[in-house]
């Protein structure tokens, strides 16, 4: 795995101003659909280098040490404008915990199909289930003496179901990530709602009311506003003391996933919003230089093919002072329960605007009334965040693609069409 020639080349080209990332990963994928089974076993190695030469940042990657050396040679010929060099981390880990070999995932297709059918009273059928389990070892070195290694593991998947009622049909997709034992029942419930609720022919009966967001919808919203936590400067409308309602506390803490980020900075917990007040933001090495701050350990590599960039790693709503979800439901006088999104959450951070298209259930006096095939909530993002009236305790994590955790949220007032 060592890339001695690349290391020599980097040290020569950019003394102390280089970083080398190496990854060896293994994953098993099982794609099940009806009687068909497709499986893939992948053993991927990748290496990436980032360095500042003549003041400009360059990045190269390859699938082997030889490929990386060639890529470095190509990248060095690109004329790049100067940019400030980062303040490199200097940790050093002793010994390396190697990743346990990933086992192929078990085939849960039949069990999920059965539970989905039961949850949907036979109206939804599982069409395809993809499960992926993987492990990888990452090593990061830099010109200032950093040498760290870490093992990471993942188990995630996506399920596709078709809901049918009479001549109407609807496709539903649920992306999930399991950190412990597989929670098939939760995936079945989400899929059933997504596949069956849109089959109702009723559109929203309300133009305005309260809005209860399912954890999956709230997580999508949280992921959509995440750029607020990584931007160098907030948008003009953002008032840091009044970011959201007092009930909102948002944090990022990937300590359970990996001890370092993709640049070798130690992982730490960062409180981003404390009781409605924006108190901090996330930084990688580059954004830390721009803001004259230190990295918070949020330099993320989506793949070895891309340079690290600032991103949340495990973003979530705190729920220590939350209420049981049934209390939130009981408190709704007249509103909608947004059970599942029917289109990606759309947020314009600069213009203070959001749009959520969802399927759900109408609620009157704390009781579910009738399914709503489709509704759209839209308005000002700043108002939405300030109108979070209650936070439940039923937090769940969803891959967005980083783990994003949200409980059921009660929005005190929203406009629907």
């Amino acid at each position, binding site marked *: 795995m060592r890339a001695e020639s690349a290391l020599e080349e980097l040290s020569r080209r950019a003394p102390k101003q280089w970083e080398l990332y190496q990854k060896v990963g293994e994953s098993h994928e099982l794609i099940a659909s009806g009687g068909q089974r497709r499986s893939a076993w992948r053993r991927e190695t990748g290496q990436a280098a980032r360095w500042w030469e003549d003041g400009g940042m360059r990045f190269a990657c390859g699938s082997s040490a030889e490929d990386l050396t060639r*890529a470095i040679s190509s990248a060095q010929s690109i004329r790049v*404008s100067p940019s400030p060099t980062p303040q490199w981390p200097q940790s050093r880990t002793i010994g390396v915990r190697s990743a346990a070999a990933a086992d192929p995932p078990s085939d849960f297709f039949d069990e999920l199909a059965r539970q989905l059918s039961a949850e949907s009273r036979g109206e939804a059928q599982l069409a395809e289930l993809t499960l992926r389990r993987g492990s990888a070892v990452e090593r990061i070195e830099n010109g200032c003496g950093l040498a760290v290694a870490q093992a990471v593991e993942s188990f995630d998947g996506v399920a596709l179901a*078709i809901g049918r009622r009479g001549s109407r049909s609807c496709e539903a997709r649920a992306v999930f990530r399991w950190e412990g034992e597989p929670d098939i029942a939760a995936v079945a419930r989400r899929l059933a709602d997504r596949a069956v609720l849109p089959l109702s022919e009723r559109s929203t009966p309300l133009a305005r009311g309260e809005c209860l967001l399912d954890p999956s919808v709230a997580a999508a919203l949280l992921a959509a506003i995440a750029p607020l936590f990584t931007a160098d400067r907030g948008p003009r409308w953002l008032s840091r003391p009044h970011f959201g309602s007092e009930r909102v506390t948002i944090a990022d803490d990937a300590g359970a996933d990996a001890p370092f980020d993709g640049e070798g900075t130690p992982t730490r917990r960062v409180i981003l919003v404390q009781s409605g007040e924006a108190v901090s933001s996330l930084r990688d090495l580059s954004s830390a230089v721009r803001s004259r701050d230190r990295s918070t350990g949020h330099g993320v590599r989506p793949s070895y093919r891309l340079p690290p960039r600032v991103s949340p790693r495990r973003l979530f709503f705190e729920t220590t002072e939350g209420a049981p979800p049934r209390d939130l439901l009981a408190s709704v006088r007249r509103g909608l329960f947004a059970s599942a999104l029917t289109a990606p959450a759309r947020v314009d951070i600069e213009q203070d605007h959001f749009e959520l298209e969802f399927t759900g259930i109408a609620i009157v006096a704390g009781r579910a009334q009738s399914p709503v095939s489709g509704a759209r909530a839209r308005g000002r993002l700043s108002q939405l965040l300030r109108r979070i009236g209650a936070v439940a305790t039923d937090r769940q994590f969803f891959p967005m693609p980083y783990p994003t955790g949200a409980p059921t949220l009660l929005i005190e007032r929203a406009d629907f069409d």
Partner: protein
Amino acid sequence: MDLDVSRLANWMESLSKGPEDLAEIFLEHRRAATLEWRDGEVVTGRAACENGLSARCRTRDADHLVFVSDASEAGAREAIRSLQIRMGRPALPRKPDRPKPQSESEPPLDVDRWTRKLTSIFSRLAPRHRFRWTLSDVTRQVVPVRGAPSSSTRRLLSLEGTFTAASRRGDEIRAFSFHAPGSETTADELRAALARAGEPRETPASLPDGQADVVLAGGCAAVFFHEILSHALEAGQESPFSGLEQARVAVPELDVRDDATRLDLFGGYEQDDEGVRPRPVKLLDAGRLAGLLTDRAHAPRGVSNGHGRRAGPSDLPMPRGSNIVVAPGHATEDELARRVSSGIWIADLDGGSVELASGQFRVRFPRARRVRRGRLADECGPGWLAGEILPALKSIEAAVGREVYSYRALGFCARSGQVVPVQGAAPAILVRRLAIRSLQRSLGSVPALESGA
């Protein structure tokens, strides 16, 4: 990738038991350079050099793939051996690693020449910008257990991002994307496309939700047909066309084909990712459903029409579209505008999706122009066009434009996590009564770089 292909085929013998079993080795060598530009300066330079190889075996009810990041003979041996063990077949014996032969030096990617050209184009046409430009050379080789090996190389260029353009009420940020295979004329074509995108425009007004007659002009009908025809006719999945083979679903004046042999378009290729030479497939022939896009696993009698595609060597192939090409008609654009009388004229679609179970689709337009009394009037948008596949096809008018335009803004399509290059060329078409949903202006300006099911 100079491998002894007959030796690889021999190693795979034990994987393919019957004539219907498929077994192959797929190799990819990819070189790419990516430059990020900001206001005339290159702020980041990236280069990639990657090799990957996978061995695959498909039997009647299962498909297995093993991928390694090593496109050498040793990598092939490792992948085949792992596959044999997984499938319970006699495995190749282990052999000690031999030193890899020194690979030949390759011609440079031409980044310097392109950097100079682009600097000049940007400084004249769009001095304030944030663009990402990628140049990639991809060589793919397929070695089947039976039959001849194949190899092909494609050079592709993409430019995506935003730039500041003058509008009559001040500056505005516009999205721009351009995807083309590398050729002598690509720079001129890019220059023309950027000049068109930067023309002064009115500030668009918001659109009311409702239904409207819509002209899809400037080649953007390729996105519309990509969503409603190409995806729906990818073999192996349920769609509203299932059970309607040969049925008339649109006016007889409409001919649509998927043509991977059009190498002048971004989605073209000489061999598909299963080593099959593609042939143009008629999807709609005089308004009738005419064919499916197939790979080897989904082809009748195993005869694929060359649409087995993969995003990379670590992916299993699946039937995918390539270049959607709509045949010209006889109508002029003035005639189409007169026929609309009152409606919307759209020359740019920047994304879309389709849900095959219900047949519902939506495509997004960043801006449009109203047509009033048969004339182009004020600007409006952004918004979505939505509908169901079969009614939308039925609503296409017989008057089809006479000029066919390549639609360079369409470049990639994602399905099941696999992103492949696609493109299309189309004349203007008129579709009656499509649902329109307005979109907040700022939400419509985000470039959608992929379109897909």
